Structure formats: C-alpha cells, structure tokens
C-alpha cells in the first residue's frame, strides 16, 4: 500500500504517532493476492517495532531519470522483508532539489493515473511529466509524508526519480525510515480491535 499524509490544516486533540507502534493492529484486505497467503485477508497485532534509517542518494543529469527498485531483487535497494512475519512500513521523504518521483508497482504499472484514456505519468511527455508526481516539498526529508507497506515477496515498487529541466545535474536524496513491524496473527479480533486497526490495501485497490 502507498499512503500520502497531507499537511494538516489544524490539529485537535492528542497527537498520534505517524508510524505503527507496538500494540497497534493492521488488517490486510482480501484483495491481497493468493501468492501472499501469509497476509491475505488476515488481521495482526504489532508485537514489536524497530526503526532503521537509510539514505538513497543519486546524482542525475537534467531531463533524465532513474528507476529506484525498493525490492530485494537484483539491482534493488533491498528494502523488502525476508520473513513472512514482518511488515515493513517505509516512510519516504526527499531533500530539496529540482526533481520529482512517480511510483510504479510493478514496473510499468502506474500507481497514479486519471480516468481519461492515456492520462498516465510519463516523464518523456511534456504534458504528462508532472502527472502523479511527488516533489520534495510534498514529503520533506525531516517530515516524511509518504508511507509504503512491504511484505515478503511483494511485487517490486519502483520510484521513478526524474530530474527536471533547468539545471545541469541534481543530487536527489531519498530519505527512508524503515519501521520494522513484527506481526502476531489474531484469528478472532474483536469489533473494537477491527475498528482501531489500520487497513492495508493492495495496490490494485489504489489504481481504480
């Protein structure tokens, strides 16, 4: 799942932690595929967490891009879990610069698109290079607002990192906090636990 936390216009009441904490509940929807049976439609309690920071820096030329693969496959940056009991909640933010990021999962499948035919992100087309793009101001390095959820063997998530025209080169620094969550399955959650849980959608549900 990908979640974007917009800037709040006002804050009322007690603040909630941005990341999942010990004792929180998560519910994977039934749309998760059969190839991920250890999470599909299941309900979990977070037994423990551990936050691990990482920076992904790339110097790229103007009007060019790099596909950053978050998975553990060859060429990836290895930010996916390796055990079925682990959920990685990844907070992603960007240091300032003349660049943007568009997400694909798996490669070639856009996360963001509009209903009109052909309205899909494409950095090589002037009229669509900003479509569905996240800029550094949308998720600052010190206030990360993009949350990604990874389980073992999930399809690779690609962050197409594109340096816009108007400069010669740009250093793109993707700041990552991996919140490692150890999952304990709960076979019969109460209605209150279900109400308090965070629902994790599969990517196909985001692409409607």
């Amino acid at each position, binding site marked *: 799942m990908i979640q974007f936390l917009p800037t709040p216009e006002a804050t009322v009441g007690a603040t909630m932690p941005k990341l999942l904490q010990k004792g929180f509940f998560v519910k994977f929807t039934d749309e998760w595929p059969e190839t991920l049976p250890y999470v599909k439609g299941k309900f979990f309690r977070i037994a423990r967490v551990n936050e691990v920071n990482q*920076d992904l*820096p*790339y*110097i*790229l*030329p103007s*009007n*060019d*891009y*790099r*596909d950053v693969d978050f998975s553990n496959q060859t060429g990836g940056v290895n930010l996916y879990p390796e055990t079925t009991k682990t959920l990685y909640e990844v907070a992603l933010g960007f*240091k*300032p610069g003349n660049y943007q990021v568009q997400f694909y999962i798996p490669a070639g499948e856009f996360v963001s698109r509009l209903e009109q035919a052909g309205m899909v992100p494409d950095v090589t087309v002037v009229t669509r290079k900003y479509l569905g793009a996240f800029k550094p101001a949308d998720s600052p390095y010190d206030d990360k607002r993009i949350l990604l959820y990874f389980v073992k063997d999930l399809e690779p998530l690609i962050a197409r990192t594109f340096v816009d025209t108007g400069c*010669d*080169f*740009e*250093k793109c*620094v993707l700041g990552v906090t991996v919140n490692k969550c150890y999952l304990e399955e709960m076979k019969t959650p109460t209605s209150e636990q279900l109400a308090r849980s965070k629902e994790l959608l599969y990517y196909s549900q985001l692409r409607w």
Partner: protein
Amino acid sequence: MPSLAQALDAIGLVTVFAAEKQNAKIVPSQIIVDNEAGAAQRVITIQDVFTPAVSNGAPVPVVTTVNRLIITVDNAGWATIAAEALKELEILGQLQVSINVADAGTIVTISWGFK
C-alpha cells in the same frame, strides 16, 4: 561548519577542499581569495566533481567536472564572497579549486556547510 585555507600551488593546478558527502550537497558560505603575494593576476575556478548515478539516458556515467564559479583577482588584490552571494551555489560532489597558473602566493579560504 568546516573551513580550510590553502595556497594554490598544486602542480596539477587543482586543490581539493572537500570530498563528496554522499547524502548531502556542499554549500559554500564564504570564499576569500588572497592574491596579495601572488605573482600576477589569477583566475580561480570553483569546481564540482562527481560521477553521476546510472540513469536511463546515461547507462555508463563518467566523472564529470562542472565549473560553478570563476573569479579573477588582480595582482596584490583580494576577493571576498559572502554567504548572501553564495546561497544558491551548491556543490553536488567534490569541492575543488583550480587556478590558471600555480602560485604559492595565492591563498584561498573556503567555509562551507551541508544541505
């Protein structure tokens, strides 16, 4: 915030001030060129040296040098560039200074931070 003063007498005409910090840009906050003891007018170039990452359009990147600032300082002269004038100057890779003619009498002082 680091600061370093060096005479520009390197045989290769290039003097390194700061190696690349991988996850940040180097942002000079002050540059002073002291050519009082220099033998002649000198041309100083602030350079940015880096190897870009592999990208869609450049699958085999090469070491790249970009001249970010060029200063001409008269014989027996000084040049001082303060933070206000440098605030948009960003060095993506290694910060180095080159001079048109190696001269032990030309001293450059640079202060910098990271962004």
